[in-house]
């Protein structure tokens, strides 16, 4: 959810990366007892996209303005 929110609202993106990464680690360490790996991976991917957009957008502002 944070990942999806991070795309239109960049402020959520870093939290999506943190949350997605942490969830993935826990799921993989749980030896099959926890599910939702796909959701966590997609949340992480969306968060990374959001963070990348945030960084490029902010960098553009400082370079071009």
């Amino acid at each position, binding site marked *: 959810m944070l*990942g*999806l929110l991070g*795309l*239109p*609202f*960049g402020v959520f993106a870093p939290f999506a990366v943190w949350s997605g990464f942490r969830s993935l680690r826990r799921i993989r360490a749980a030896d099959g007892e926890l599910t939702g790996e*796909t*959701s966590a991976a*997609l949340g992480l*991917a*969306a968060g990374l*996209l*959001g963070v*990348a*957009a*945030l960084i*490029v*957008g*902010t960098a*553009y*502002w400082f370079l*071009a*303005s």
Partner: protein
Amino acid sequence: MRLVARLVAALLVLGLAAFTYPGALAVSMVVRLTAPPMAASPGPTGDLAWLHVEHPAQARPYIADEQKRMVLLHGAIPAGLIDFWTGTDQSRPNSPPFYPIDPAAYAGGRCPANSPAIRYPPLCRADLNQMAELGFNSVRLPLSWSLLEPERGHFSQTYLDRVAQVVDWARAAGLYVIIDMHQNAYSRYVGPGTGVDLSYLSGAPSWATLTDGFPSRVFLGQRELNPAVFEADSNFWYDRDGIQDEYIATLAFLAKRFRDDSTVAGYSLFNEPWPGWNLPPGFEDLLLFPFYRRVIDAITGIHDGLPCWTGLFMPAPCGYPDLGVHDVRHLVFLDTGLLREVTDFPTHLGLPVSSYLNLVLAVHAYTHIYTFDALAHQKPAQASYPWGGYEQSYSLADREAKALGAALFVAEFGDSPSDDSLIVANQLLEQEKHEIGFAFWTWKENGGKSSWGMFDAARTDVSPMSSSGCLRTARERLLARVYPLASSDPGLSYHYNSDTGSFSLIGHGRAGDSPTVVSIPPEVRGAVAVSGTAVPVTETSPGGSRLLTVTPSGGPFSIAVAAAPLVLLGCG
């Protein structure tokens, strides 16, 4: 089954990414690298030179004439063509336009009588002549979508003719016209309710005002803080029922009429855009500026956005089909979101909007009037915000314009007359410092002493009621200014002292540069002195205004007007 679910989820993320910031950013970067469209031939010769935007390396773009001289636009905003509500029963928001929109009613110098029943007087030929006498070289002309397209798909030729009539008057008076698609709190058709004053609302026609049953009720005394306005604006930004497409078609209808007319400097695409339920910066970056890009695509015929559908929500990367106008000569004024007016701070990332070169970022400078401090009822002289004072908005606007690749213009500023010596004086100082033109809100206004017009409100106990009282002394002193109309040196510095009537300009020129032209209004009587230029040429109009033309001989040059008591026109 699991694989299908994963694929669908991945597509959802990719789709959302394409339609939001990552996609918007990608389109903006492509726009930045796209070769700009150029006019295939010079524009038809008119009475006024065509304006465009020059893009110097490493500096903020600026408005320029055909000789590539920086041009400063000074003017006022008459509200006589806006479709404000009038009447006594607010439950009937569909009152007809108060003043005739048929140009015949204004022919031969005729002017309908003013009335206390409406906030603004009619706009007549004499107004344009008065503006020119004050040394203005432009007028921002607000229109209403509700009069341009009163029925869906049916445009009003009569109202367009009325606009053309004002453009003709402006041409005769030597004024550029900035055509402004005006709106205030979306539309008067959001309807009546607690705290709602419909006579302050204008913009969309009834059929394009979709409030979905949200109550019309004003909170905190701010006309935009109204659930019905939030909903109607949001429906516009999301193109519900294709209303945004109709708006774009309306702009194309206007642009087609004035395509070859250099008197029209350009179009202000949407006045004071209110985000509705959307938050900045997403509102500007993902909804407003992409909407601007679509309008530009439609009226210029360039294809900056991606080919998409029309008639329903178009995400940020979407462009718009060519509507056949092919206007690549006029300026396009881009208002920032209304919240910038409250913050004096950028509420967007400044992503490039279009490869079209003639973009002008239009800010509304209402420091201490609509900024946080004013909303907290602080007095301007003791305000605790903006932290950077008046300079905050201007220095940031400089950066915003550079990032967008746009020139900069103050499309609105004004205040209650009692604050002129503080607010208007400081705004003008900032505009000089940043070399930005202005449009003053408003030209004439009915009401009492606190009305915002340049003139005193007209007396209501005489019949027929005139369009105004006398020109307000403080406003004439401040706004009838000496300023450079055009100069080959965009880095020049200048200052007019409205207390003494003195003026100084320092610039740098090369032999062969086009002349610098300085406007001296009739109020200013000081002697002119120049250095570093060929002999200046002074033209004096019958009204007493002077036009000073100086041709640099190479190297630094200066122009000065000596201090002398101002001769104010007032009621003259």
